[in-house]
Each structure stands twice: as structure tokens, then as C-alpha cells.
């Protein structure tokens, strides 16, 4: 992770960390290899055109990179309508394709948690008791050299 002033700001004061009062959609991104996870809470409101994210927060069991990614992406997500949310997730995942697995894994976990929360919201329009959706990441956060050493 490149440690610049903006990243340090997010480390010192992660934005949107915690719960959202009146959250009506939650989603989880999970790393099955090490148990790290991100839980996203969203309060989705309806306006005349389409539902939008009135408030969003996250909690994580993970490293500093996950916290920085959570802080940045939830800031981006706040105020977007659901199409905007799906576009944000898609653009993030596309961007992560260019990074090594171990650098991409934490941000992927956050992006998938946001997608899971949006999907949970959609499902709950038909079934209000629909459980929290969880997506597992495809990237591996263990650096390749370390992985080979562990074999």
C-alpha cells in the first residue's frame, strides 16, 4: 500500500466505520482463506426515480488496507442510486484486475460487501426477511512468495 497523506487520513479517521441507524440492507464480503470479513450496512431510501443510498457504513475484521478501502469506497457510495452502486462496484473490480492478488484482495472484499448489501436490498423488496447476502473474494491476500514458502 502506498502511504500518502490521503491514505493516512483514512487510517487515522476511517469514514463511515460502525453501524447505520435504521439500516435496511446489509452485505458481507469474506475471505475464506483467513476469515477476514467486511460487513456493510446501508440505509436505502426511495425517491421518485429510484432507490438511493441515504447512509452507509462498514465494520471489518481485517487489515489496515481493508479499513482504508472501506473508508474510501463507502464515501464514494454515499448518495448514489442503486445503479450507481453497481457501477461503482464494477469499476472497482475492473481496476483491481490490474493489481497483484495480495494487493487487490482487501479492496475486493469491500466492493463485494457493498454489492452484497445492494443485492440484499433488492431481494428484500420481495421477501422482507431475506438474510444477509455474503460473497467470497476470488483474490488471495497471501503474497505468492510467502505461499510457496508455506507449502
Amino acid at each position, binding site marked *: 500500500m502506498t502511504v500518502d497523506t490521503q491514505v*493516512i487520513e483514512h487510517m*487515522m479517521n*476511517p469514514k463511515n466505520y460502525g*453501524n447505520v441507524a435504521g439500516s435496511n440492507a446489509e452485505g458481507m464480503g469474506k475471505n475464506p482463506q483467513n476469515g477476514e470479513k467486511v460487513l456493510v450496512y446501508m440505509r436505502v431510501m426511495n425517491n421518485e426515480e429510484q432507490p438511493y443510498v441515504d447512509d452507509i457504513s462498514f465494520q471489518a475484521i481485517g487489515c489496515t488496507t481493508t479499513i482504508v478501502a472501506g473508508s474510501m469506497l463507502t464515501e464514494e457510495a454515499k448518495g448514489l442510486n442503486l445503479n450507481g452502486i453497481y457501477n461503482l462496484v464494477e469499476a472497482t473490480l475492473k481496476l483491481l484486475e490490474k493489481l497483484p492478488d495480495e494487493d487487490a484482495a482487501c479492496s475486493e472484499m469491500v466492493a463485494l460487501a457493498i454489492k452484497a448489501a445492494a443485492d440484499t436490498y433488492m431481494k428484500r423488496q420481495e421477501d422482507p426477511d431475506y438474510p444477509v447476502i455474503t460473497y467470497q473474494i476470488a483474490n488471495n491476500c497471501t503474497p505468492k512468495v510467502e505461499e510457496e514458502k508455506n507449502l
Partner: protein
Amino acid sequence: MTTVLIKTHEAWLEMLMAGSMSHTQNRQTLLDFSDILFRHFTWIEHEMIGTGEAYTYERDNIPVKVDRLDSILKNIILRLNELDLQLFGLKDKALSERISSDIHYMIEVLHGMNDEVVTAFAMERKFPGISLTQEATDALTIFLFEETYKEYELIMIYNYLKAHSDDAFLNRIFQILVDESFFHLKRFCDMAAKMGILAVPRVVMKELYQIEDVTQFLKDGIDEELAAKEECKRLSEAVAKDSPELEKFFDFINHQENYHIALMKDALAYFAKKDSNG
């Protein structure tokens, strides 16, 4: 009682941060007060367990970014006054009076403290008197963020385990691990303040401390301690050229992990013995 627990938790951390940002004799007093508030927290928790009231370690984020010590002291005084008013919610009146008496004394001392300029949030990322390479500075920055949170997380986990156990052997181990993590947390906060990157650790998710399988937690904990040893070794090597003082400090932390691992192994052996005895 939940509000009292949350407010005490927040006051404890805010006081700890204030102590970490002080450069004068205020420092030790503030850190001592933070220890007292943590003990209040454990007493209130104990009472809640006794009355069967459900609780978690949830709390609000605590804004601590100030440029004068006076500013945070005023915030703490407001928080303590608010807490004092909430104490009527405690069923144990003797406990309530004891906490209230401590709070009144602390407020009086805080009012009399001299102001200081605070540089703990300046983001200079320079250790006084030590010149580190950019790579070592970045590695140390990430280490301090990771580890201040990790030590806070461990305090909360071992405190929760201790609060819910009446086994003297295990509680001795949990208490030592809490004490060790307190020492590390204070040292890392001190270093973060010197680097200008002091931050309140984030809230710990409840599934981390409401542990269902303690033996698995201990096994994972040993692996984490081994990984922490490696990290300390890497950091020690990264700073060795520029600072023998920091090199020695990270070697010291590295060797302390052996002690934690030994304690966790003792706890695991104890669980295994208990299981074999049925």
C-alpha cells in the same frame, strides 16, 4: 446500564489518547486516570453480567483531533459530567458512589492542568532525533496503525473472556495478557503521537470477543503471535541502520511475544486437561 458502560468505555479511550498526546507531567496523570476508567468499565460490566443484562463493546467514534491539550480536556470533562449524571442507572449504589467520587476528583485535577501544544496529529511522520528511510517510515506507519488496533482488540477479547470466567487459573492468564496488551497499546500510542499519526482504535466487532470456541481462538492467537514476531523482526531489520534504539525496541517486542505464546499454550494445555478429566 448500557449507556453507562458505553460512556465509560469512551471516556477511558479519550483519556488514554489525551495522555498519549501530552509531553509533560500531565501525561502520567492522564494515563493513570485512563487505567482507573478502564477498571470502572470492568466493574460496570461485572454488574451487568450479575444482573443478566445483555451488552456488547459497541461505542461511538471518539473525535480526538485537537491542537491544544485544553481542548480535549474540556471534552473529557463534559463527558465525565455526563457520565456522572448517568450513574443513577447503576443498581449497585456503593459502586455508583465510588465511581462518582473518582470522577469528581478527576474533573478537579483536569481543570488544574496546564495547557500544551499538541503535535500528535501533525502527520509529520518523523521520529524525534531519528531519521528513517521512506520505506522504513511507511513500514513503521502501517505497523503502528495495525498494532494499536490489535492491542486494543486483544484487551477487549481477554477482558471479555475474563469477565465470563470464574476459573482462577485461566483468569490469571487472561489478566496478564490484558496487562501486556495495555503496555504495548500505550507504547504504540506514544510512538504514533510522536510520529503525528495518533488515532483511536476502531470498534471491535462483537464476534471477535463473543468467542464460541476458546481453544480455536488460542490456537489462532498463537499463529498470530508468531506472525507478529516475524513483523517485529522485519521492522527491527528495516530500522537497524538508522536507529539502534528502535531496533532494540522491536527486538524486545518480538521476544515478549514468546511470553504471550507460552501463556496461551498454558491455557490450551489446561483446557486439554479439563477435557480429558471430563
